[in-house]
C-alpha cells in the first residue's frame, strides 16, 4: 500500500484499496441494499406473465406469416359452402359467404394487431412529448395542456372515436387515429408525472449549470426515468386498442368488407346467431385472450419495475 502517504496530502479517495461504504446504506443503520433482481429475472418468476408473453409472440408470428399459415384465401367466397359447422376441411367452419373462418381468423390477427400498434403509436407520439413538456415547463404551459388532456379523458372514448370516424370517414386507419387520440391522455399523465418526479432533482439543475440544452436534458436525463412506466402503458393500451378496434369494426366503422378483422367477424357472427352459433366463438375467444394477455404482460412489467425500484 502507499508508503509515501502523509496525512496532510490530499488523499485519493481510495488509496487503501478498500471499498468506501456508500454512506446511504450504512449511515442510516440499514444494511447494504440487497442487490435488486433484474427486470427480466423478475418477470421470469411470474408464470402468468410468461404464458401471456408467449401467447402474444405466437400471435405476432401468426400475423406476420398469415399468408403461409392460412389454409384458404380468407376473402374467397364459396356460396355452396355457406355456414358450415366445423369439419375436417374447414376446422372452424365457414361464414355466411362460405369463407373459411380459420383463415379469416388468422388474417384478422394481422389486422387487429397492426391496428392496435397504430393506435398505441399515435397515443405515444402525442402523449409522451406533451407530457414531458408539461412536466418540465410547469406553469401555464402545464395548466393548458393538462386541461386539454383532462377534457379528452373525460369524454366517453368510444363515442368520441365514432364522432371522429364520422367526420374523417370510416376505415381502419381513421378509426385507429381516433382510438390513439383518445388514449393519448394516459401517456400524457404518466410522462408528466415521471418528469415532475425528477424535474427538481439536483442532477437536472447540475445539467443546466453545465450548459446542457433543454432537449439533451429531456432525452438523456429525464426520459430514462419516464420510460419504464410508459412501457407499461404501451402494453395496456395495446390491449385496449384491440378491444376498441373490435368494437368499431363490429359497428362497421373500422375495417371495411371484405377484409377480415376480429371485430368484423364478430359482427358477421351476431347476424347469423341463430343459424350458426359456432361463429361467435373464434373471434370472441381471440379478442378476450389478446386483451387479457396484454394486460398480464403489462402487469408483470409493472410488478417487476416496482420490485426493481424498491430494491434500489
Amino acid at each position, binding site marked *: 500500500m502507499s508508503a509515501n502517504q502523509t496525512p496532510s496530502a*490530499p488523499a*485519493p*479517495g*481510495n488509496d487503501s484499496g478498500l471499498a468506501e461504504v*456508500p454512506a446511504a446504506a450504512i449511515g442510516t443503520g440499514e444494511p447494504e441494499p440487497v442487490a435488486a433482481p433484474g427486470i427480466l429475472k423478475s418477470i421470469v418468476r411470474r408464470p402468468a406473465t410468461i404464458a401471456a408473453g408467449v401467447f402474444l409472440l405466437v400471435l405476432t408470428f401468426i400475423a406476420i406469416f398469415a399468408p403461409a399459415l392460412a389454409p384458404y384465401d380468407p376473402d374467397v367466397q364459396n356460396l355452396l359452402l355457406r355456414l358450415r359447422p366445423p369439419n375436417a376441411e374447414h376446422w372452424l367452419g365457414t361464414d355466411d359467404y362460405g369463407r373459411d373462418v380459420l383463415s379469416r381468423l388468422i388474417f384478422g390477427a394481422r389486422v387487429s394487431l397492426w391496428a392496435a400498434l397504430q393506435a398505441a403509436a399515435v397515443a405515444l407520439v402525442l402523449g409522451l412529448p406533451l407530457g414531458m413538456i408539461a412536466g418540465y415547463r410547469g406553469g401555464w404551459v402545464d395548466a393548458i395542456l393538462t386541461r386539454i388532456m383532462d377534457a379528452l379523458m373525460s369524454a366517453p372514448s368510444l363515442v368520441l372515436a365514432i364522432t371522429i370516424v364520422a367526420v374523417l370517414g370510416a376505415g381502419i386507419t381513421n378509426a385507429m387515429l381516433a382510438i390513439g387520440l383518445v388514449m393519448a391522455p394516459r401517456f400524457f399523465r404518466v410522462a408528466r408525472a415521471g418528469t415532475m418526479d425528477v424535474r427538481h432533482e439536483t442532477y437536472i439543475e447540475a445539467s*443546466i449549470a453545465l*450548459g446542457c440544452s433543454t432537449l439533451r436534458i429531456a432525452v438523456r436525463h429525464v426520459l430514462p426515468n419516464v420510460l419504464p412506466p410508459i412501457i407499461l402503458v404501451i402494453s395496456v393500451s395495446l390491449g385496449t386498442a384491440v378491444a376498441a378496434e373490435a368494437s368499431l369494426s363490429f359497428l362497421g366503422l373500422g375495417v371495411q368488407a371484405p377484409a377480415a378483422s376480429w371485430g368484423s367477424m364478430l359482427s358477421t357472427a351476431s347476424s347469423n346467431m341463430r343459424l350458426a352459433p359456432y361463429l361467435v366463438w373464434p373471434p370472441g375467444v381471440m379478442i378476450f385472450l389478446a386483451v387479457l394477455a396484454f394486460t398480464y404482460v403489462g402487469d408483470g412489467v409493472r410488478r417487476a419495475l416496482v420490485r426493481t425500484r424498491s430494491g434500489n
Partner: protein
Amino acid sequence: MSLLEVENLTKSFSAGRDWLGRRTKWLNAVKGVSFTLERGECLAVVGESGAGKSTVGRMVLRLIEPDSGSVTFDGIDVLATKPKQLRALRQRMQMIFQDPYSSLDPRMTIRDAVAEPLLVHTDKDRATREKEAVELLDKVGIGSRYLERYPAELSGGQLQRVAIARALTMKPSLIVCDEPVAALDVSVRAQVLNLLRDLQEELGLAYLFVCHDLALVEVIADRVMVMAAGEVVETDTTDQIFANPRQEYTKKLLAAIPVPLPRDAQGNRLVAPGRVG
C-alpha cells in the same frame, strides 16, 4: 477588472396564492446584495439557513433569475445573454452542489457523467472525451477504478470528488460551491476541502463558497461575506472577520462554533495541558 461583479441583486419568492391563483405574500429572499470576486480568489458567503446565500450563488449562474440587479462575469452582462450564449458561458462558470447523492444522474456511469460537458460543448470524439475524463478523475483522486460504476455504488466523499471533476471538465475560471462538504463526514470533509484548495492553487480558480459553517471558512476563504435575512451584514478579509468582527451578528456566529474542548463536572471548559490560555 474583477472576474465577477455583482450589484444590487434582489429576489423575492411568493409564499402563497389567493383564490384566483395570483401570487401573494412576497418573501424577500435576497435584498440588494453587491460584491466583487477577483480571479483566483475565494469569497465565502456565510449565514444561517434562510439567509439567502444559496439563492445568491444560483443567481450568479442564472439558475434563478434575479428580480433586479446586475451580474458581470469577465465583462459580460450575464443577465442579458441569450439562452444559447448563456449555455456557452456556463463552460466558464460552474457549480458544485451540497448533496453529492443527488447531483449526479443515477442512471449515468461515472465516466459518462464526467465526459458529458465535453460532449455538450466540444466536438471531440468519444475516445478523446473518455481519455480526458479519466485524467480529471485522476486529478481529484478517484482514479480509473469506478469508470463503469453508477453513483449509487460510491460513497458521499467519492461522489463529491466526481462532481468536482465534472465541474472542472471545461476549465472554468469560477466555481460556485454550494455547501460542498455539509453532507460529508468530518474526516472526508477535510479531504474534500484540501482538494478544493489544491485545485484552486493549481488552476487559479475563483470560488464563491456558500457555507453555513464559519469554522470551515477560515481554511479556504480569502474574504468572507456574512449574510442574514437576505442582506449583507459585513464583508471583510478572513483574518479580519475572525480577529476583529465588527457586527454583533458575526460575533454571535463565531461564538457558536463548537470548540473541541471537553467540560468538567461543573460544565466549565477544560484547558489543554501544556498550553497557556
